[in-house]
């Protein structure tokens, strides 16, 4: 087996991975960094983020206000020490991106422009038109090219973490072009593989968002955290699930039901005003706005379409100039995928799975409980997002915690003197190779189509674990997932070749998704309260006595995943009521 060895290995080359790599390269140019990514880095899903990145910028804004917005947005499930660290470091990170060339939108005087965003009480969202993620990712990737200590393994698919004596030592990965399975060892590994939206049928997430890193960590013995906290974005295009950014509402867009009525006023989100008001109506937090749209569907006040009910997002009153300068991608996407022009027509939208607040459990330095393993970005859960992330906090998060994880990994490597037992790692890797051969590449007797199992998984996740959940629906999903796990052992494999075998990667991704889906369902089943994005019909109230705590879910040898609780860190903001659209 081909093997190679590095000091630090990153899995994932999106925003968090690239930021971590640059942080390590800058901390110590002698550290040998490897980046394993299943796609070329600039294809990573960071590219699809649209609206912006929040960081205190204006004179009238304070760090404490960004903290409070984030904490109340999280429904008090965010860790306040992590949030304080995030809020204080994010402006510096955004500035660093500016120095690296990110084409941030500007005020007429040449200063950075900021825009309002949902759940934020001040204008603090930096943006590059409505292609912020795209510009951030390309800026990070292009900047990373100047550091010669970063070795990239592009289009290389990690299948397993190698653990020896309670510490992570490397990965087994498939080089897609050749199909060669190789072992890459490292003293530290940082997982930056993004989210797992593809476990749901209707998602803004790209095809690659299959929870790989979450599953790798979970299988290696690291706990996942708050996996029941699944964000639905209020405004996705029907059928495709393509995201229409929250910036559309921040710029003044309205949500209307089939009667042309701004229905958010019926959901304790404030009163309609002609221009946007912070933390009110269309600038409410995503969980509450998505739940309100769902409420309209239940009252039959939405429109009926071939892909389910929808409401209207109306931008017409903003005018062509504003739409073209501030929201060009929204217009482009509507024209291409819905054949409508938002300058003249309202946009059909419905809530769509968008983001995982949960992920690999880390501390505020990006370290997991498994020695040598770190994580950052959407794949991680620090947690700053608690049970509901505010729009424009995730791009900042991947910078702050990408950099933090990179620095901590660099320190860890500097202090870790031990040598690997190469033979034992190689034996583990050989076993993994044997399993890939036997279960997939040489398998000829399977009958189950990958796509069929994937669809059944997605369907049960939506029906049992969507915007609203209850015990019966969750138990049904848990049982269904067990059945699918069993059936996934008998996949029909048609491609037995080595070269760029995307059926093999689809099969492995299905395995990752089924494991991650089980953690979501079991965390949701165990949390008998409603908080943020986790809404239990059978437990409609928040319960701070029992659940002011993170779910930690670990794999058990037999039976369902094991869920435990870890108290939330409260520093200066005791739990209170979430108030939007009215005075405190």
């Amino acid at each position, binding site marked *: 087996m081909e093997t190679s060895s590095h000091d630090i290995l990153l899995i994932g080359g999106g925003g968090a991975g690239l930021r971590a790599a640059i942080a390590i390269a800058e901390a110590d140019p002698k550290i040998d960094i490897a980046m394993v990514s299943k*796609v*070329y880095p*600039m*294809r*990573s*899903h960071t*590219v*699809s983020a649209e609206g912006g990145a929040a960081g205190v910028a204006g004179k009238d804004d304070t760090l404490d206000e960004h903290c409070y917005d984030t904490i109340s947005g999280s429904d008090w499930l965010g860790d306040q020490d992590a949030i304080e660290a995030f809020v204080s470091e994010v402006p510096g990170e955004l*500035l660093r991106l*500016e*120095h*690296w*060339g990110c*084409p*941030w*939108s*500007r005020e*007429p*005087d*040449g*200063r*950075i422009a900021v825009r309002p965003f949902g759940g934020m009480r001040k204008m603090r969202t930096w943006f590059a038109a409505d*292609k912020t993620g*795209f*510009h951030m990712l*390309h800026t990070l990737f*292009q*900047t990373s*090219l*100047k550091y010669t200590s970063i070795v990239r393994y*592009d289009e290389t698919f990690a299948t397993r973490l190698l653990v020896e004596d309670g510490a992570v030592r490397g990965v087994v990965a498939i080089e897609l*072009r050749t199909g060669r399975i190789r072992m890459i060892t490292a003293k530290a590994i940082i997982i930056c593989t993004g989210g797992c939206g593809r476990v749901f049928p209707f998602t803004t997430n*790209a*095809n*690659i968002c299959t929870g790989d890193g979450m599953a790798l960590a979970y299988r290696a013995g690291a706990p996942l955290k708050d996996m029941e906290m699944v964000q639905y974005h209020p405004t996705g295009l029907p*059928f*495709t699930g*393509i*995201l229409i950014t929250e910036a559309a509402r921040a710029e003044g867009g309205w949500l209307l039901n089939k009667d042309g009525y701004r229905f958010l006023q019926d959901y304790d989100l404030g009163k309609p005003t002609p221009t946007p008001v912070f933390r009110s109506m269309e600038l409410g937090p995503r969980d509450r706005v998505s739940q309100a749209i769902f409420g309209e569907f239940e009252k039959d006040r939405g429109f009926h379409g071939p892909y389910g009910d929808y409401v209207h997002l109306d931008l017409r009153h903003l005018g062509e100039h504003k739409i073209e300068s501030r929201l060009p*991608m929204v217009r*482009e*996407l509507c024209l*291409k*995928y819905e054949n409508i022009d938002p300058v003249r027509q309202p946009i059909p939208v419905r809530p769509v799975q968008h983001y995982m607040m949960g992920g690999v459990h880390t501390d505020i330095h990006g370290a997991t409980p498994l020695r040598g393993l770190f994580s950052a970005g959407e794949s991680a859960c620090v947690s700053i997002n608690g049970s509901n992330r505010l729009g424009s906090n995730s791009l900042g998060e991947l910078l702050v915690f990408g950099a933090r994880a990179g620095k901590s990994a660099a320190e860890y490597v500097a202090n870790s003197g031990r040598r690997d037992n190469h033979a034992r790692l190689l034996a583990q890797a050989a076993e993994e190779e044997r399993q890939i051969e036997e279960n997939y590449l040489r398998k000829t007797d399977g009958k189950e*189509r*990958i*796509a069929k199992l994937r669809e059944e998984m997605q369907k049960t996740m939506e029906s049992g674990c969507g915007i609203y959940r209850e015990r019966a629906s969750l138990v049904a999903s848990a049982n269904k997932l067990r059945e699918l796990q069993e059936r996934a052992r008998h996949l*029909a*494999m*048609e*491609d037995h*070749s*080595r*070269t*760029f*075998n*995307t*059926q093999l990667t*689809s099969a492995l991704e299905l395995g990752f998704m089924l494991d991650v889906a089980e953690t979501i369902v079991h965390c949701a089943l165990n949390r008998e309260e409603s908080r943020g994005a986790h809404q239990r019909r059978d437990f409609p109230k928040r319960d701070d006595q029992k659940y002011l705590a993170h779910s930690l879910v670990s794999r058990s040898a037999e039976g369902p995943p094991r869920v435990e609780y870890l108290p939330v860190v409260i520093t200066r903001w005791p739990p209170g009521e979430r108030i939007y659209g009215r005075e405190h």
Partner: protein
Amino acid sequence: MADTIILEIARFHPEGDAEPAFQSYEVPLRSDWMVLDALTYIKDQLDGSLAFRWSCRMGICGSCGMMVNGVPKLTCETLLTNFAPGPVRIAPLEHFPVVKDLVIEMDGFLGKLQKVRPWIVRKDGRLPEREFIQTPAELETFKQYSLCINCMLCYAACPVYGLDPSFTGPAALALAERYNLDSRDQGATERTDVLSQHDGIWDCTVVGECSVVCPKHVDPSLAIQQYKLTATKEWFKTWLLPWGNK
């Protein structure tokens, strides 16, 4: 309108095939499907061995470029019904080596990307305490070149690249120009060394196909012509004022 359409797809598995051959698949012709939806339908329902790249399905990640009836297209934003009644031919992007089926080899581009130094160069190494001041007008001078998604359609359309794969090519050159025009950058002279070489800008014969096929309305052809002008001026400067760039 018929309710199905035939896709003729170039297939090539290097482990078994001597050369590519077209294979036909019949798929539903749905009014809201893109060509990519038809390909994922084939992969999921008809033939799991078909290989192609895709990810965001919203025209921003740059993965799914292919030749559709001979024209380089992002398949995720190309309506299938445009080709009714069919058949429609899908082939890998031209001018690139084929890895398998519709998957091309594009490492060469990544090398070129690195070569043009697509990052902010500060000669004095100094950074402002706050942001660089950059007016909307200054942003506008390079903005369109920063919109490139590296989808490779322009290379598939470029006849010069087709003849000479060492040509730096439209996307990488446009990106170099993006940094040259950025008011925060001081690296134009460094980049001139690379871009003025034989395989840099001078190979371009101004066919302009790159700008026609670009799905993001970047105008690489304009970037290259602008750059030729800058390079000529730089060359004259070094000729007339030998100390000018030292």
